[in-house]
């Protein structure tokens, strides 16, 4: 049997090491240090960077950086192929259970295993991650040419992060999950702090790291608690009626649930612990932001679904309403703040706070449609927000600014760019026909079945979404062309290739979401069963009903 998941984890990890260790073009002339100093003074993405670029490329970077990038792209594509091959072998009829399982003892004293396996949701999220990574690499191709290392460190970090992203979704040992969960912070920390944008980046990186670490450490107590009570770290040992964890008294279960939940809420990011995200996104390169918001934050919602709900069914009912309340606040609050942003990266980050509100709302509504919608939303949001960040990134690369007020009338100069911007923006506001609509609709239906009022409040978020997206589009793309924008290039071939697959996916999943739902639904059914067992008024109609309903929507 081929260890698909291990290969998928190992491949980018090896790639990261290779890219990082590739022999550097050594230039010891004094000119190099001058170039280095001025390049670093320019920091990221400001207008001076362009002036420094010729000098820097003449001295540092050079051929080996180009090789490094190609190597990075190659490894990410190879990983995509491996995961795609794995996905084809995935047995959809068994999507509720774990497949491609591998279990090897790692630290026997504490019963820790290297255990991986995927169910439908995990597979979908892994697939989303490996699709995003090559596109991010492609989009970031020219971003770091003014650096002394030509950005090779950045690409190595992306690959390292990819390995961890696959690992975190595939882990079926709570300890292994925790390891990936925490270690993932380190590459992102460097991607923001070292390779980020603007002067605030090191502050934003620290804020990001400390928030996440604090959450992770609280989760560590809960992880230890799970082991002490459950006697094992293997997920398969911990879930189900017969496990020692299921027999724990509800008070303890609540504490453990809370320990996990705080970490996931910070990651997700849920109001009121979302404040790290806007600053992190603002200081990120667009590629970093794609991976941060598109994939890393999904670990939070995935964790709620996989760990909070399934490990502590006894505690779920107690938390349903508080979490629904927080989700609603996130939806409205994120949307209102998004409307008021001038920095486009921040704006997209706040839209994500709002969207994540929908996801957590769907998860904790505990109905089949809502959870299926939430799981699908995770995937769709990754593509939609990823594309939006990339497009904003292309704008920033042209003008050197993320401020909406610096733009205007881009449509006339760069129609292709504006078109893609519009499509991804409309995906962000869940226009019917585009992928996020299906998931948002499912969430709202499911939530309505759970209780009408949250669904009604959620719809307000949908309305606000139209406001922030369309208003941003109007201010940047329409109207008279702002000064300083003349000669703005349209999308280059590379940039087109970076966003085209995402736009295609948004369209395809928008009109034909069935393949994704086929994979996701059986896994959702499992968690809903657990939730339904404890919440009397859970109202779980079964996933089959959900499937038929979307058939009608199309």
């Amino acid at each position, binding site marked *: 049997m081929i260890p698909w998941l291990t290969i998928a984890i190992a491949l980018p990890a090896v790639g990261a090491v290779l890219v990082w260790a590739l022999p550097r073009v050594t230039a010891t002339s004094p000119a190099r240090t001058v170039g*280095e*100093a001025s390049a*670093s*003074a320019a920091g990221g993405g400001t207008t001076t960077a362009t002036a420094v670029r010729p000098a820097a490329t003449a001295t540092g970077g050079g051929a080996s950086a180009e090789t490094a990038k190609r190597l990075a792209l190659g490894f990410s594509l190879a990983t995509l192929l491996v995961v795609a091959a794995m996905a084809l072998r995935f047995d959809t009829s068994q999507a509720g259970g774990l497949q491609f399982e591998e279990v090897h*003892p*790692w*630290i*026997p*004293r*504490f019963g820790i295993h290297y255990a991986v396996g995927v169910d439908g949701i995990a597979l979908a999220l892994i697939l989303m991650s490996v699709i995003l990574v090559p596109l991010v690499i492609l989009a970031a191709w020219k971003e770091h040419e003014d650096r*002394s290392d030509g950005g090779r460190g950045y690409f190595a970090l992306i690959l390292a992060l990819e390995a961890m992203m696959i690992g975190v979704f595939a882990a079926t040992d709570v300890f292994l999950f*925790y*390891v*990936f969960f*925490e*270690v993932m*912070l*380190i590459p992102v*920390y*460097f991607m923001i*702090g*070292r390779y980020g944008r603007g002067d605030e*980046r*090191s502050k934003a*990186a*620290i804020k990001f*790291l*400390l928030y996440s*670490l*604090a959450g992770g*450490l*609280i989760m*560590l*107590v809960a992880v*230890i*608690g799970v*082991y*002490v009570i459950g006697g094992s770290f293997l997920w398969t040992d911990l879930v189900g009626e017969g496990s020692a964890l299921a027999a724990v008294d509800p008070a303890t279960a609540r504490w453990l649930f809370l320990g996990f939940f705080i970490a996931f809420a910070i990651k997700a990011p849920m109001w009121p612990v979302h404040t790290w995200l806007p600053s992190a996104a603002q200081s990120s390169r667009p590629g970093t932001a794609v991976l941060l918001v598109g994939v890393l934050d999904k670990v939070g919602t995935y964790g709620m679904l996989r760990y909070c709900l399934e490990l502590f069914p006894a505690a779920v009912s107690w938390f349903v309403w508080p979490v629904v309340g927080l989700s609603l606040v996130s939806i409205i609050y994120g949307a209102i703040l998004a409307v008021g942003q001038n920095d486009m990266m921040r704006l997209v980050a706040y839209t994500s706070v709002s969207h994540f509100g929908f996801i957590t709302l769907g998860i904790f509504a505990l109905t089949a449609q809502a959870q299926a919608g939430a799981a699908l939303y995770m995937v769709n949001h990754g593509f939609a927000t990823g594309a939006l960040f990339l497009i904003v990134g292309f704008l920033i690369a042209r003008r050197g600014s993320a401020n909406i007020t610096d733009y205007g009338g881009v449509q006339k100069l760069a129609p292709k760019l504006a078109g893609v911007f519009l499509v991804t923006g409309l995906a962000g506001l869940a226009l019917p026909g585009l992928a996020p609509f299906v998931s948002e609709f499912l969430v709202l239906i499911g939530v309505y079945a759970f209780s009408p009022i949250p669904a009604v409040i959620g719809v307000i978020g949908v309305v606000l979404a139209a406001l922030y997206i369309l208003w941003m589009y109007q201010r940047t793309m329409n109207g008279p062309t702002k000064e300083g924008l003349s000669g703005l290039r349209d999308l280059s071939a590379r940039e087109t290739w970076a966003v085209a697959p995402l736009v295609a996916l948004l369209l395809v999943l928008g009109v034909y979401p069935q393949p994704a739902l086929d994979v996701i639904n059986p896994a959702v059914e499992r968690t809903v069963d657990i939730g339904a067992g404890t919440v009397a008024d859970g109202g779980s109609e079964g996933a089959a009903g959900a499937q038929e309903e979307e058939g009608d929507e199309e």
Partner: protein
Amino acid sequence: MIPHMDLPVITEAPPQLDWWLLAPLVTVFAAGVLGVLFEAFAPKERRRGLQIGLAVLALLATFVLLVIQVGMLPADDPGVTVAAGVLAVDRTVIFLQGTITVLALVSLLLISERRDGRDAFAAQAATVPGSEEERAHILAGSQHTEVYPLVLFAVLGMLMFPAANDFLTMFIALEVMSLPLYLLCGLARRRRLFSQEAAVKYFLLGAFSSGFFLFGAAMVYGYAGSVNFGEIRAAVEAGGAEIFQGGNGEPLMLMGIGLVAIGLLFKVGAVPFHNWKPDVYQGAPTPITALMASCTLVAAFGALLRVFFVPFGGSAESWQPMLWVVAVLTMVVAAVIAVTQRDVKRLLAYSSVVHAGFILTAVVANSTDGLAGAMFYLAAYGFTTLGAFAVVTLVRTKDGGQELGDLDRWAGLGRRSPALAGALTLFLLAFAGIPLTSGFIGKFAVFEAAVAAGATPLVVVGVLSSAVTAFFYVRIIVVMFFRDPEEEGPTVVRAGAATGGVITIGVAATLLLGLYPGPVLDNLLPSSESGGEPVAVMVDQASTETSSE
């Protein structure tokens, strides 16, 4: 030939010494004495080479002897006591002694490192700083090769400290360990007044805490009628020596435990007995700081574990509340103070205090798991901290002069010397307890033991203070990697083979114990199956007698 193991029979007659079991200690002691003789008789120019060779050989031999010893211990028995029951030889002790030996060996590399013919120590410590005499000695290239025998004597004390099986031996070990360290602290080549101040502070406070320890031992003697750990344990379980009826000796015992604890907690640097640490760590020559931060900490914690688990293990409920308070204070206070530190060595000192707090949570657990967790933590932390201090020795002022401790001036180090800054980053991440480093496994092990023993609130405090400490570790990374290099920034002197070796060993150990800790956890540490009480795997005299009968 190796004599047989089930020897020690306690008699009234002059004690039969099992030299084989004492061999590791005797080796270090003999090498120390020989080193003193070298000072007296070996020609000046050859002393340094001889001393280093002798010290390295002695420590290597000690390590080999320890490995052979552990192989000879009876499989079903934790170990034996030796020399009329004053020293314990069990797997726990041998693990700690082995750790100390290896760490001392690595520190020795740092201590022996020379740059431009100069090591980290004053040319002639007896001269007044800044005097003509001092300059003359520097020009003449004088050096203190006495450092090596002093280190060996200190290591002897450290090896004895966790092995002691009665309070008197433990006190002697404490002094044998401390006295050479007081001296070594005052020997720095640069900033000599600072160094001397550190030595005096360390000496005064250390002497004071030794007094507490001795006073406590006397109280315990009054209560139990013996200084032997096995007999004290029996007395504690019986409610005091025969003269105390109905448990009315308990105040004596409590005072004894408290005073002994002060002596030990001072050595590990727990709050509120931590005040010496930052000053001494900063003032002492960095290689000596490294030795203290790794080996001394292991030895002190070894002794602390032994005292609380063996003689006082029977009345855990009487000392656990005290350790709860101390552990919480240690973790919280040190973490908060550390945030404001600007000097790398002071910061590492406070970090070491916080780590002591983490290990104390495992002591509170009072279980075999706690013991094993603390042991693993000590070994893991020892290697990481050695590596970190080795990096500190390399970062110096622009003219290649003294070490540059001021953090603000480390800006841009990551761009100038990525490898060095990368290594330090790894060590800092290990301190912060990021997974895939040894620090994380250690933290997990001690916290797991504490949660299993019901000390979950303590662990919650622990993780919160971890989050605070992460802030200042991360800040160092920020300064190194995310800030632009300064004009007057530090230069990094090229790592000599020895210092480079220390950093490499530190990196290797940090990663290896983080990625693949299984072999150490499974084979070298007491397993949880041997019973909940840690005394099951630690010998005292009582258990030896029952096993030999």
